[in-house]
């Protein structure tokens, strides 16, 4: 065998190791769009609270319920966009959308996220909504860090960012909303743009 053959062997090994253990077709564009949805949702909620609720949020008022609805809409739209764009990218990469690597990614992403979601519902039902923004950021961050082992390693840094923002939000409860906007809106857009240009554009 010549040296070129050995080099080809090594790149083949690397390629198979990545392909068999990581799901790499996450779309950067869907991150950008999720960030935009969050910013729009945040802006609408901000406008509602300031114009119809005297700047404070009453737990049983319609404004609060509308805010929860906006939050769910942002989450659902982000998930749908993510699934659609990721499927498209997986097809282009010749990667299966539903195989062992994507299943493993989703399970590991959902464990911290579902835990956080249930915890959040419990906290809200006990009328302690001051930490809601912080909890969303922290558990979402933990979910990302956990999932990063099974996908693009880069997601880990978005996770770290969300956790730090969440801890700050917990420390400064009055600014929870703004940390939420930065974490779910601005950070998704920044990391999404980076991912889009770094991974989507570059041929692997």
């Amino acid at each position, binding site marked *: 065998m010549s*040296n070129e053959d*050995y*080099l080809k*062997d*090594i790149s*083949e*090994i690397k390629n*198979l*190791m990545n*392909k*068999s*253990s990581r799901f790499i077709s996450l779309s950067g564009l869907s991150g950008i769009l999720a960030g935009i949805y969050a910013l729009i949702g945040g802006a609408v909620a901000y406008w509602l609270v300031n114009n119809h609720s005297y700047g404070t949020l009453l737990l049983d008022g319609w404004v609060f319920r509308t805010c929860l609805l906006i939050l769910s809409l942002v989450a659902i739209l982000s998930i749908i966009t993510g699934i659609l764009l990721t499927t498209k990218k997986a097809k282009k990469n010749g990667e*299966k959308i539903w*195989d*062992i690597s994507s299943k493993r990614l989703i399970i590991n992403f959902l464990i911290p996220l579902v835990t956080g979601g249930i915890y959040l519902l419990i906290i809200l039902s006990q009328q302690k909504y001051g930490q809601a923004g912080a909890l969303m950021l922290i558990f979402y961050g933990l979910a990302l860090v956990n999932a990063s082992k099974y996908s693009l390693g880069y997601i880990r840094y978005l996770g770290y960012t969300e956790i730090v923002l969440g801890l700050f939000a917990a420390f400064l409860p009055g600014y929870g909303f703004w940390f939420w906007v930065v974490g779910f809106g601005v950070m998704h857009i920044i990391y999404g743009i980076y991912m889009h240009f770094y991974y989507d554009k570059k041929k692997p």
Partner: protein
Amino acid sequence: MSLINNINKAFDHRIRLGIMSILMVNEYADFNMLKELLEVTDGNLASHTKALEKVDYIIIEKQFIGRKPNTRYSASKSGRLAFKKHIEALEQIIKKSE
């Protein structure tokens, strides 16, 4: 030519090298997963897994999921060691020639 001696004959084939690469980073893999990743035919894959089993580099476990038979492959301790040595040998050869 001691460097070439470290190159493991068992891994001297694209598919056997591929099987080991996948099993190094996964706890186990089943037949279909290997088949899809390596893009080979059933018979071809079976003969290569058998070759690796013969030298005790991989462990084959046959079981049933419901009623469907399922074959699971995992790398053995000696297989992992041999693969690492093989990679080191490859690296050495490439380094020497630069």
